[in-house]
């Protein structure tokens, strides 16, 4: 296949950063040449270990996810019965937790744990890239920082889901959904911490803020804390769990949050640019892909398909 200009750029950057020697460059170039234009063929034919093949998250990120996940749910379940006291489930849930005398201790303790997790995360996302910059390995496209490309990817992905486009866009390590979710969670965490602290230290907030807005601020925080909590819980329940558990192809779960590894097929499908970097960084992956392409007769160059049946309406195999 011929890489898009964008993918070519990512590949070049990665090879430069990793100081790939000429032999390696040649090998990669040949491998890219062998790859079919249709990436769908790639991700449907690779063999994946369900617990993951390719590195994705460091141990720090996994610990932070675990901490966020545990603290968030426990905070939600201890807080929601108090905020939404007039709903039928509020009282039984609160009783189940052990009453407000217990739940308020849990809530505050976990709030501190959540804030510490945020600080831990801030350290990770600052020191990690700093180290990369220092080593000359930093790539902004490989981070979660939103770029204009994400909007284009989003549009193209929708076109693909609608059946208009032939392939999913070539997305980077973090796709548009992940970036959106990350910044929503980051924003939500800040809202929860600020509003939560305004419940715990209302007098201190009032003494810091100007007289004109002290009252409005407190009222806004009273409104924001349960609203943001409920919204976050619904987004987690409806969307994040859908994405990682219920989506077809992801069912019953992805193991990335525990193993830190992503499956090969997922990497190629949704993070193709990152897969190109994997090819540069992990020589074994090159040989795996090459063997697979040969064994499955997917090589683009000079290869004739033996598939006897005619192909479907829109799915013509790429011309040799």
């Amino acid at each position, binding site marked *: 296949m011929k890489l898009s200009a964008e993918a070519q750029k990512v590949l070049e950057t990665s090879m430069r950063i990793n100081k790939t020697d000429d032999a390696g460059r040649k090998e990669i170039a040949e491998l890219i040449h062998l790859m079919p234009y249709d990436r*769908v*063929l790639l*991700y*449907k*034919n690779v*063999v*994946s*270990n*369900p617990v993951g093949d390719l590195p994705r998250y460091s141990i720090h990120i996994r610990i932070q996810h675990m901490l966020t996940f545990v603290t968030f749910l426990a905070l939600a379940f201890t807080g929601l019965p*108090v*905020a939404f*006291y007039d709903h039928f489930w509020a*009282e039984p849930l*609160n009783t189940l937790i052990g*009453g*407000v*005398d217990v739940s*308020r201790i849990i809530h505050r303790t976990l709030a501190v744990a959540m804030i510490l997790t945020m600080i831990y995360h801030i350290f990770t996302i600052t020191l990690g890239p700093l180290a990369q910059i220092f080593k000359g390995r930093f790539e902004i496209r490989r981070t979660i920082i939103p770029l204009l490309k994400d909007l284009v990817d989003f549009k193209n992905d*929708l076109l693909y*889901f*609608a*059946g208009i486009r032939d392939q999913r866009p070539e997305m980077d390590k973090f796709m548009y959904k992940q970036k959106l979710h990350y910044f929503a969670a980051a924003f939500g965490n800040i809202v929860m911490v600020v509003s939560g602290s305004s419940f715990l230290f*209302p*007098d*201190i907030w*009032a*003494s810091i*803020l100007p*007289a004109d807005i*002290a*009252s*409005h601020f*407190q*009222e*806004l925080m*009273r*409104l924001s804390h349960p*609203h943001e909590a409920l*919204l976050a819980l*619904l*987004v987690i329940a*409806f*969307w994040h769990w*859908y994405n990682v558990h219920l*989506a*077809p*192809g992801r*069912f*019953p779960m992805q193991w990335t949050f525990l193993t830190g590894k992503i*499956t090969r097929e997922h990497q190629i499908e949704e993070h193709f640019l990152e897969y190109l970097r994997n090819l540069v960084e992990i020589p074994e992956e090159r040989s795996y892909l090459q063997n697979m392409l040969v064994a*499955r007769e*997917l090589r683009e160059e000079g290869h004739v398909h033996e*598939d006897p*049946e005619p*192909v*479907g*309406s*829109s*799915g013509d*195999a790429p011309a040799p």
Partner: protein
Amino acid sequence: MTMKQSWITLLFLIMIGIPYSGTVQAYVDEEGCLLCHKYPKMGRITEDGARRTYYVMPHVFGKTVHRNVPCRDCHNYIEELPHREVETGVTCNTECHSVKNPATGKNFSHKPIYDAYRDSVHGRDKITSELESDKPYCITCHTNPIYNPKEESIPKRVTDRCVICHEDREFVESWYSHTSRRIREVKRSSIEIIELCSSCHEDQSMVDRRLKAAEARGEELGKKFPVAAETYKDSFHGKVTRYGFTEAANCLDCHADYENYYLSVHEIRPSRDPLSPMHDDKRVETCQRCHEYANENYATIDPHPTKDLESNPFIYYAEEIYNWISYVVIAGLIALALFETIGRRRDGASWKLRRGSSWWRSNRKRKDRDRVI
């Protein structure tokens, strides 16, 4: 109904009540009031159709705080038997004839607390106009607490010493209970206080009636008066208190002066009254009882938060915006998830597992992992 008819009715009621009488008397009835008032059917129907019972349940009254007070100490207008029609009845500022205040030697009376109450926003006469009767009288809150000296085990090692001189164990135990009851904390719990205050302040018909009356008289009611109970329950104080948390402020923590609790709960005043702890001049001090660093800014925070357009447009619009953001986000994400499902199903992904993954269906590409190498 004439006087004569009343008496005939009464007699009739007494007669049908006779078979039900005969309960054991738990206290001394030297005045003979129970001659008549022991009959359960003793009562009448008033001119305006209300049923009144005059039955004194000896087994209940015998356990109340007033059980040792002779009837005519309070019912001091009774001069003959059978007595005449009662007009006002007992008011709580009546002086007792036989019970002396041991400290002053004067006749015992609830008059000091009654006077404090009469000066408060709740003060009213016992018999009063229809509108005024929205306010609570003493017995609205004080239901003449029933307690049984025998219900808690009295520490025998203590009373054994008393009995040596006072001889009568029953006397000793009842005095011990009388004293210990007053020494112990008899404050109502936060939940009870909120229930008590809400029993009137949550009554929309009472609120409407008083708003209308105030308007007619050109008076001003507190701006939180119509929403006091519901907004408290919606506040942070109310939310944790309803679950039994005892340290958050209840109604009396702010509206009464905590320094002299038992007196000040009878002296509740509107916040525009300079004597109220909620008056602008005293508000900061009141907040500081719990919120150590409270200042003037803090005192502007509304403890009875409303969120309707008229009284609080800022929060009204903020909530509208929040709601719309929530609806749009949730609907958008569900729509995206559904759209994605459709798209990826078309691509061949499904929920069925094969070889540890759910990519397995053959599809338009006709190339999938089912083709074993």
